[in-house]
């Protein structure tokens, strides 16, 4: 498969604050790549560097075969940015906003493309109203449509659903998924795990300026050893007894319930149940919690924080 974006050892500091401490990743053509991280993790800085808005201190980045720092203008020709703040002109109408981009991109058929895009984003009725009258969801949709003018090869979506209500979020997800079907490569940043899980072919977790883990959503779940089981007992005394039986395992106990961390393997699971059974403690309820990306994310961040504490 062809790499369309290659990022190597990207570093960037703002004054004394080192935001990116050596970021590496690559994106294959036609894939959706999610950069996942909490607020301030450096996601936006990363997108701004790749979309030629900010210069990196060191490292290299190539998009569509062009060097992002030395051939910025060529890179601009093959990308489109939808930033965190809707980049729409409030005083113009939706249609005029699209025409503006079409004319700046010198598309001979920008009127036709505008009509098509207005239909895709379901904004035909409001096309000739000023954007200042639009709702947040409509603005966001128009914003993305403006990025789609001229069918760019690569689209950056910086937190595309932040601030949207759940209904609009789903509409947006469907739009993004449809884009990828047409072969557009998408780099999306998000702080929502479910969003990354739903949309992305590949997820990279950015934390404290480095990629702490990456892989497909399934792979990420796999490399994380956390499989938690929850055991509920008849009473607190039973639970206390069970705690003794589980010596050696990491668990948290709360009244009648014990939550045990395992590596997710059948062997460990059998061992745990075996120990409790052989101590003759009745279990009133047993549940196995599938590791969610949320767990994965929090675990990774937690571990990094423990490990990174010395640096602070």
């Amino acid at each position, binding site marked *: 498969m062809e790499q369309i974006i290659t990022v190597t050892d990207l570093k960037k500091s703002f004054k004394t604050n080192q935001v990116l401490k050596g970021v590496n990743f690559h994106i294959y053509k036609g894939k959706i790549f999610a950069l996942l991280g909490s607020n301030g993790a450096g996601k936006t800085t990363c997108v*701004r560097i790749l*979309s*030629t*808005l*900010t*210069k990196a201190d060191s490292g290299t980045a190539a998009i569509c075969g062009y060097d992002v720092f030395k051939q910025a*203008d*060529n890179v*601009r*020709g093959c*990308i*489109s*940015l939808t*930033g*965190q*703040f*809707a*980049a*729409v*002109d409030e*005083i*113009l109408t939706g249609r*005029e906003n699209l025409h*503006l*981009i079409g*004319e*700046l*991109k*010198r598309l001979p058929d920008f009127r036709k493309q505008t009509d098509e895009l207005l239909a895709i984003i379901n904004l035909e009725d409001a096309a000739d109203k*000023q954007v200042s009258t639009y709702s947040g969801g409509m603005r966001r949709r128009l914003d993305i449509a*403006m990025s789609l003018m001229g069918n760019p090869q690569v689209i950056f979506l910086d937190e595309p659903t932040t601030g949207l209500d759940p209904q609009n979020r789903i509409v947006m997800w469907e739009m993004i998924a449809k884009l990828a079907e047409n072969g557009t490569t998408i780099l999306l940043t998000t702080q929502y795990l479910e969003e990354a899980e739903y949309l992305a072919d590949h997820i990279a977790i950015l934390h404290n300026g480095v990629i702490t883990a990456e892989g497909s959503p399934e792979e990420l779940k796999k490399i994380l050893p956390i499989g938690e089981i929850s055991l509920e007992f008849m009473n607190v005394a039973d639970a206390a007894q069970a705690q003794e039986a589980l010596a050696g395992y990491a668990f948290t106990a709360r009244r009648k319930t014990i939550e045990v961390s395992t590596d997710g393997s059948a062997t460990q699971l059998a061992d745990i149940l075996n120990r409790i059974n052989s101590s003759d403690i009745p279990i009133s309820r047993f549940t196995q919690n599938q590791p969610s990306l949320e767990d994965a994310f929090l675990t990774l961040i937690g571990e990094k924080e423990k490990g990174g504490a010395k640096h602070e």
Partner: protein
Amino acid sequence: MNKAISDSYTMFKRCFVKTLRSPEAMTMAIVVPFVMMVLFGFVFGGIVYIEGLNYINFIVPGIILQCVFQSSTATALSVHNDMSTGIIDRFRSMQIAKSAFLSGHVWLSVIRSIVIAIATIGAAFIVGFRPTAGVVEWLMVAGILTLFIIAVTWLVVIIGLVSKDSESISGASFLMVIFVFLSSAFAPPDTLPTVLRVFARYQPLTPVIDAVRGLVLGTPLENEILIALVWCVGLTIVAFVGAVQIYKSKLTK
């Protein structure tokens, strides 16, 4: 080069549509010159006596400059708005001429100021402005005012680029009003106390006003036209270089 022109034209069209969309701004642009002519002409016209001159005739150049400043403040605001919203990032991440964004704003601003200057002169005629200038003088006036408008436009572009919020733009706009009042716009500088008189005599608005007044009314001129031209061209060069540098530095942070 072709690309730069067509991109600038697209940006200009955007600014133009936006100007037409704000009816208050357009109405203000036409009404304010008229009201100012009436207020100053009739309120102070009766009490101010300047030898050999009708007060309405005297204040026309100052009012024109005042109205140009008023119109230019809108440019500072729209540059500021574009810079502080996501729209500038979208433009910058596109393959368009780097100069297009600023030149779109500048072209629109210059043309709008010229229209307003003409409207001001029209309003002046209605309230009793009686110039003696011939075609040559009027062409010279047009030249000086156009150069002045270009200089002011680049200055307000700087204001728009560096302002943190719209309040600081109002502050800058107030400063412009002070420059107009502390010039030869409404009273000859000789009538002012020493410090202010020195300021009024050597600041750039006074030679521009004196040159326009001399040409329009046929009053005697020494080297005011030359001084006015030097000021306008000098300010344009400084403000242009400054604006472009500030714009670039804002973009590479």
